[in-house]
């Protein structure tokens, strides 16, 4: 939360959000004590592995949680307005207009029986008083904006006629159709080939520079984080364990989980021009993520943590500012 002007109203402010899933044996938390502030023009990445609560966080921000889950407490403010207090009608007005989502798998997120142009036009007409023809023309302009090759023709095609990369462009065009202030992207490049991923990442950052949207990007890939984030939140077992600027995260990660993740990723850059040897070992994180309905009593990461002490096993560490702008939940680094 440094380098962002404090006097600008945040596009999105989440405070003390708790989301729970209603299971057979009662409710258990999937997102706990989430706080999140995103300002216009800023990209916040939420990183973590499967089951850490990052996708549930994203869905709750659009009030798209599945029936089995609910927001237990907390507030979500979109440009100052209380999103959770709104009625269904108001939510639908806002969704797609001020806040929009880009999903991971465009083939399942797009409607297979409507052309790309029709889908974008439909979304535009939902929020703007435009005729069919005008809305379709706007759809074509949106496709131009996302640099879709041959937008006039593509607008008349169905999702299955497009390649994976073009589908993802179409979905981004759909999200941008009403010029939202906030975009939430859930693993937007995970289903794509690496050369196409590069194009889509390029596109997302270009568009943000031009349009000044506030972005939340959910990913498991630290490489994507390094390419695109301003600020990063690392989640583990439903909680934030670390939050800081992207530079600080890569220069000076504090939480043992973050450090473990960084050591666990083999990345191509490491070998460019460096000595070739037999593959050395990766620093793996032993064990697996604990199930959310059976979390350890203390720090959720303690059973896998190389530096865990007795205190870590019994008391949950608070999420506090360790150095200016750098937050972490760990009993270590208390005196940093």
């Amino acid at each position, binding site marked *: 939360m440094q380098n962002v002007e404090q006097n600008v109203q945040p596009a999105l402010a989440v405070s003390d959000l708790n989301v729970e899933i209603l299971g057979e044996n009662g409710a258990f938390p999937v997102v706990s004590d989430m706080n999140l502030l995103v300002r216009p023009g800023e990209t916040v990445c939420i990183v973590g*592995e*499967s089951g850490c609560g990052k996708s549930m966080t994203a869905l709750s921000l659009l009030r798209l949680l599945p029936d089995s889950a609910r927001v237990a407490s907390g507030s979500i403010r979109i440009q100052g307005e209380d999103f959770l207090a709104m009625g269904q009608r108001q939510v639908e007005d806002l969704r797609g207009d001020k806040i929009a989502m880009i999903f991971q798998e465009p083939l399942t997120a797009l409607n297979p029986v409507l052309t790309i142009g029709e889908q974008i036009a439909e979304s535009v007409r939902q929020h703007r008083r435009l005729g069919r023809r005008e809305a379709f023309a706007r759809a074509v302009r949106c496709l131009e904006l996302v*640099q*879709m*090759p041959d937008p006039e023709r593509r607008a008349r095609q169905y999702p299955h006629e497009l*390649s*994976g*990369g*073009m589908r993802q*462009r179409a979905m981004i065009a759909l999200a941008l159709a009403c010029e939202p202030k906030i975009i939430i992207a859930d693993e937007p490049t995970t289903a794509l*080939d*690496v*050369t*196409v*991923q*590069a*194009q*889509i*990442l*390029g*596109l997302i*950052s*270009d568009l943000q520079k031009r349009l000044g949207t506030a972005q939340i990007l959910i990913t*498991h*890939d*630290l*490489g*994507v984080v*390094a*390419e695109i*984030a301003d600020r990063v939140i690392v989640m583990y077992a439903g909680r934030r364990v670390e939050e800081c600027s*992207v*530079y600080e995260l*890569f220069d000076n990660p504090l939480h043992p989980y973050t450090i*473990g*993740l960084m*050591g*666990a*990723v*083999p*990345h*191509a*850059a*490491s*070998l*460019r*021009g*460096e000595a*070739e040897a*037999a*593959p050395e*070992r*990766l*620093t*793996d*994180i*032993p064990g*697996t*993520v604990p199930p959310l309905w059976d979390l350890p009593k203390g720090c959720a990461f303690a059973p896998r943590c190389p530096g865990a002490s007795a205190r870590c096993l019994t008391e949950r560490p608070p999420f506090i500012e360790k150095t200016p702008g750098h937050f972490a939940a760990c009993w270590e680094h208390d005196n940093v």
Partner: protein
Amino acid sequence: MSDIAAPNTASPLLSVENLKVHFAIRSGVFQRQVGEVKAVDGVSFSIDAGETLGLVGESGCGKSTTGLALMGLVKTTGGRIGMRGSEDVTQMRSVPRSYRRRMQIIFQDPFSSLNPRQKVRDIIRAPLDIHGLGTAAERRAEVAKLMSLVGLRPDQADNFPHQFSGGQRQRIGIARALALKPDIIVCDEPVSALDVSVQAQILNLLADLQKQLGLSYLFISHDLGVVEHVSHRVAVMYLGKIVETGSKKAIFSKPLHPYSELLLHSAPAHDPRKRHSFSAVSDDIPSATRKPSGCAFHTRCPLATDICRQIEPVLEQKADGQSVACHNR
């Protein structure tokens, strides 16, 4: 390890020559053949004992089909697969068990590749049963040994696959592949479905097993970081053909083929201070069903000239055992 060290005078453990797998496209009432997909179109490579060859490329390039063809799981259209001490299997109607024993496979998805109704014990034992190896007691002991070898607790042998996490299931798949003491394991995207922290565990396990048992791997992956980490040598595939091959160091430090360069430049840098300025422009990406003439990469290649549009380049040997199929390099 790599082909620079120890010039091997003996024939390599596995040599694949001009392997082709074509699929017919059928359509209409009479299912007449209207075309064909050349999924693998003249692929040659070799693997030495104890060596890992990384086969890298994007979806649809034919890398998985190559692995399946080696296993005899898809029918080959042409070419030769030679394993030291075994006959060429491509001409046979069915792959003999003596060959199958020497080559095993680990699949990408640890959920769909294990029978949910079988106990782990039976899954791991199946290859021993099929090949009739050992007595019942010996097989039982072997299962326990294999489970500890891959880091599973032998007392979990009576559990079912759904009782294990993704990483543990992949360990079960590895134990099953090891049961017959193969020489080569085809690893088809073995860590792509796993979380990063678990991915590292499996990659470390595969490296340990290679050292312990002297295994060779054909490691198929789209992930450059993973390929770089595990491989001794690397082959880059594009639309059914190997466009470049060489030592890991050569491919990652001085790639010659423009496609290899594009792949490397597209990989995120893992350093926010070295951000790429990725171009948002889409290029026209062809597929195996509509393969461009000449060099298949010419539609995306910055160096493409007239000759590239007309004549298909062949893989040519350059320095240090690096080979590239490009008219301009």
